[in-house]
């Protein structure tokens, strides 16, 4: 079994020179300022698109300004008391988010529990490995027809699709992280009588945390993808359903607005996850930053 370690910030030294003891400033702010420096290319591309779209007047490619206007009208022109969210925003976002986070959380809990079991027991690993390899290899969307049969259309089907699809990175990374805890750390725990639950929560899980977080992060990305796919196929609510209905109504700017929205959500989830990860794994990145 291989784990996804991936190129994520927790594995890079914090600070610009990697030798700093503490990251300076608010991490979120640094992400924003760092992002701004790289945004010029995005701005350039959007500018080009705007000019070309306006000259060509192609219905399939509305200019970004139109997309932004529609984007705003559709979801963010509501009253201030609702944080400017429109009723449509609540209707679209709520089912999507509920499905996304329920599916992801379910996968995280089950994946973590099974991963701990697999990491601890070589017998369980040998017995279950072929099953896991197969399960991981099945492309998650292919399970949608099955879940439609079992649960019919609706939230249950979508949550199941997401949970089944995104459990693998969490499960495999947890198993790998738990299996590869330093022997000396476990022996130290044994010497000082830290066993059972105390060992699990104070030694094994913190030691495996960098790999577990890497798995959770990959899973969150998959979860967004599966959320949209499950809504495209079998739903009348949610952001995916909005995409399909605007496509069927040939409302191209509305459809594009949905695509942009999903892109923004992907970035947002990733950024929030990075903040949480920094909070929990600061020891890891800082220790590595000093060691290297």
């Amino acid at each position: 079994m291989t784990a996804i370690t991936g190129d994520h910030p927790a594995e890079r030294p914090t600070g610009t020179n990697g030798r700093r003891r503490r990251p300076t400033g608010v991490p979120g702010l640094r992400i924003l300022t760092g992002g701004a420096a790289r945004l010029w290319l995005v701005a350039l591309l959007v500018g080009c698109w705007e000019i070309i779209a306006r000259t060509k007047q192609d219905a399939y490619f509305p200019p970004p300004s139109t997309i932004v206007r529609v984007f705003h009208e559709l979801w963010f022109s509501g009253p201030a008391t609702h944080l400017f969210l429109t009723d449509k925003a609540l209707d679209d976002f709520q089912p999507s988010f509920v499905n996304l986070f329920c599916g992801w959380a379910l996968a995280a809990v089950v994946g973590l529990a099974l991963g701990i079991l697999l990491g601890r027991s070589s017998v369980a690993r040998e017995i279950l490995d072929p099953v896991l390899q197969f399960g991981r290899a099945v492309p998650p969307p292919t399970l949608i027809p099955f879940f439609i049969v079992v649960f019919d259309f609706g939230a249950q089907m979508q949550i199941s699709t997401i949970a089944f699809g995104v459990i693998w990175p969490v499960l495999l990374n947890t198993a790998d992280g738990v299996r590869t805890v330093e022997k000396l750390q476990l022996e130290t725990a044994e010497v000082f009588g830290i066993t059972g639950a105390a060992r699990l929560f104070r030694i094994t899980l913190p030691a495996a945390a960098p790999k577990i977080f890497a798995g959770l992060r990959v899973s969150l990305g998959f979860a967004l993808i599966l959320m949209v796919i499950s809504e495209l196929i079998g739903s009348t609510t949610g952001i995916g359903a909005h995409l399909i209905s605007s496509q069927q109504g040939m409302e191209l700017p509305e459809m594009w607005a949905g695509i942009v929205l999903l892109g923004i959500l992907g970035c947002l989830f990733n950024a929030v996850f990075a903040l949480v990860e920094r909070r929990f794994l600061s020891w890891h990145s800082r220790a590595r930053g000093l060691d290297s």
Partner: protein
Amino acid sequence: MLEVANLSHAYGDAPPVLSSIDLEVRPGELVSIVGPSGCGKSTLLRCIAGLQAPTAGQVRLDGKPVDRVPDNLAVVFQDYSRSLFPWMSVRDNVALPLRRRRKNRAQRQENAMKALESVGLPDAAAKYPWQLSGGMQQRVAIARALAYGPEFMIMDEPFGSVDAQTREDLEDLLLRVRGNSGMTILLVTHDIDESVYVGDRVVVLSKGPARVRADLWVGLPTARDQITTRELPEFVHLRAEVGRLVRGREAADEPKS
């Protein structure tokens, strides 16, 4: 305190690492075990600590057979950077073993601070282990063992990864700690000078498989000093004797005690 009788160990079908080791450590003694690198010193310690079951023979601590790690025993490992937990502050690392002593959080923190003071590191409590130098990290590991309050402490080449000056400081720290606590200590080292300087007795192991080649009484005064002790004729004589035994130049029929 500790009795090792006829202890042998082999990993799988490989030739034995330990062969019929007999060893006794009396309460309050500090016994150094010295031997050539790779002679199986660490395996011996692991068997004594109950981290590993020997293929033959027996280890008894206070008359009870050791089949898992006894709760009045602490181990200080050579590799402090792996043995200290990087996700815990220094204070939490030191306080961790006190959970087994059924103390509440405030008591654990207080005991941890006392232990850190006794190794001269009260200011490092809120730091993380990886923010400290190697010598300081090993002090933390010693503080953790002290906080645990064992009667018997095993040290596996504890000063093998630090520079010479730090090493001397840590040796003196060990002697001081031992004077204050009266703990029984078994220290494994490959450093001949160190084995004589800190020990009440030096047990010399031979290589492949490890046997007890000699068990020497160190007749030096209890109060030791890095400069003056090391220039005593007895010290010079003893370290030469141990050195010859370790290098195997002396006949293998050296008397066992």
